[in-house]
């Protein structure tokens, strides 16, 4: 059998262990999770349940206190260049144009100017931003900036996409548009492994192959549900589909207990 793309075994993370005057915080406890390559996994849970902590451990920004985090069978120790990490805030460099922001990761890898230019043009066109390529973030709307951030994440062609509430800061209508574009992008190429943290259950079920519900802190895995909706998905229609609604409802039952405490 193929190595899972991501494997967490008995992962526990404690914050504040280095200061005896502060009560240590158990952020996540005994997390076991195995994700095959090419799967789109959404992680939902109440705020503060350690969703972001899991992403940070996968990105190599945090080390688990106990247990192991592996990618393709190798233990993660430090940031790696084949990960794309995307945040709720677009985190674009304000001094770079949209194009230069998209090229950021490529510059770090030392990709030639010509190649960078081709890649950024392609991605900007794919996200409908070609006429704003030379605009600065301060001149663009929030939705556009978030699309630039998507393009920046995808420009380096990562094989693991870590997304931390990437559309959380967008208004409802813009979010729908950006979600559709994102799914279209993901479905349009060889499927990459995605771990998508969100507080929005509808978003999780609409986009993902699999939804993980986490408990309130300390974060543990409460349920693990496969979403059997066909792909490619047309999410603005799917929202009103009965199968989708049933799935969302079932998972909501799990999530509700964790939120109402």
């Amino acid at each position, binding site marked *: 059998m193929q190595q899972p793309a991501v494997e967490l075994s008995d992962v526990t993370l404690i914050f504040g262990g280095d200061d005896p005057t502060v009560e240590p915080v158990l952020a996540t406890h005994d997390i076991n999770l195995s994700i095959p390559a090419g799967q789109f996994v959404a992680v939902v849970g109440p705020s503060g349940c350690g969703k972001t902590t899991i992403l940070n451990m996968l*990105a190599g*920004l945090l080390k688990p206190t106990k247990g192991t985090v592996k990618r393709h069978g190798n233990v993660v120790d430090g*940031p*790696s*260049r084949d*990960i*794309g*990490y995307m*945040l709720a*805030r677009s*985190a674009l*460099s*304000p*001094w*770079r*144009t949209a194009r230069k922001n998209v090229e*950021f*990761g490529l*510059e*770090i*890898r030392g990709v030639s100017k010509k190649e960078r230019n081709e890649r950024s043009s392609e991605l900007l066109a794919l996200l409908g931003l070609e006429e704003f390529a030379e605009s*600065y973030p*301060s*001149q663009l709307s929030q939705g556009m900036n978030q699309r630039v951030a998507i393009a*920046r994440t995808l420009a*380096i062609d990562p094989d693991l996409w*870590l997304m931390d509430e990437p559309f959380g800061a967008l208004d409802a209508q813009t979010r729908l548009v950006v979600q559709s574009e994102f799914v279209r992008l993901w479905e349009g190429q060889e499927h990459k492994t995605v771990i998508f943290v969100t507080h929005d259950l509808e978003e999780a079920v609409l986009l993902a192959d699999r939804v993980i519900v986490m408990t309130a802190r300390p974060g543990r895995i409460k349920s693990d549900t496969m979403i059997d909706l066909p792909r490619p998905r047309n999410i603005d229609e799917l929202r009103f589909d009965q199968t989708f609604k049933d799935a969302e409802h079932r998972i909501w039952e799990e999530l509700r207990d964790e939120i109402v405490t």
Partner: protein
Amino acid sequence: MKSSPEVQDAPVSSIPTSDEVRAMLPDEPRWKYILRKIDVPVQLGRLAILLLLWWLWWSDTIWDGWDALSIFGVQPFPNVAPTFRAAPGETWNFLREVLQEKLFWEDVLVTVKEALVGFLIAAILGVTAGLLLGRFNRLSKIFGPFIILFNAMPKIAFLPLILVIYGVGEMSKVVLIIMIGFFIVQVPTMSAVSLVDPDLEMVAETMGATTFQRFIKVTLPAILPSILGALRLAAIISIQGAVFGEIFAAKRGVGQRLITAANQLNYEQLFAYVFALAVISLILNGIIGAIERRALRWQSSSQSTASNAGVSL
């Protein structure tokens, strides 16, 4: 759901072309737009202040007329004896004369050289120290208390000592300017480094940027506005430091001319030199301002206005 609501389609008008949109707007003549752009009240206000200042000086109103004004026994505007006055005409005549003098330009060169050399060294040291202390927490903990202590000392108080060590030549002014300018640059640079958006650092880190790449591609551009603002301030202070040092003790320089004129009660000369120094400062300020505008084109106009303290012509 029992019954779906009845949706009533409203008549949707077609979208007018951009020419049609323009035609819908009130027809405003071009001169009105230009007038608005000039902002007449602002220009009138500036003109009024200029005229007022000129009149105060020319009519001798700044020299006398308020002797009777007394607030709790304190006279804020006492009369100035005629010997110590300077008329605008005399000042202007002297300025025109002195601008022809070769020796005057040599003195200007001395003052500008002191200011520029001191400014450049202070800028290099200040930026470097600011970057290091902002980046390395340990360094800032070690050096922090001493920097606060030295910054709290009035640097001008060291001038007698500096003169003893470096002599009355140009070097002593350069040292004074470095001592003053260093802190003006170092303090804002350091705080700017610690205020760089952590999200940007995180993005760079997750993309596998090396420490050097993070410095070049994130830290440096992020702190550039703060550094340039500090440099602009330091440049003006450098001219002041040079002049102050020269007034205290010097062989050459505009400050030396200024104090000589004052000692000889030639106050029209004093005014002329002050104007000359102001022009030098403005030129320096303008050069750095131009660099700033070029380097910070990405800032939205409201941000750049804030950093220019709202001054525009």
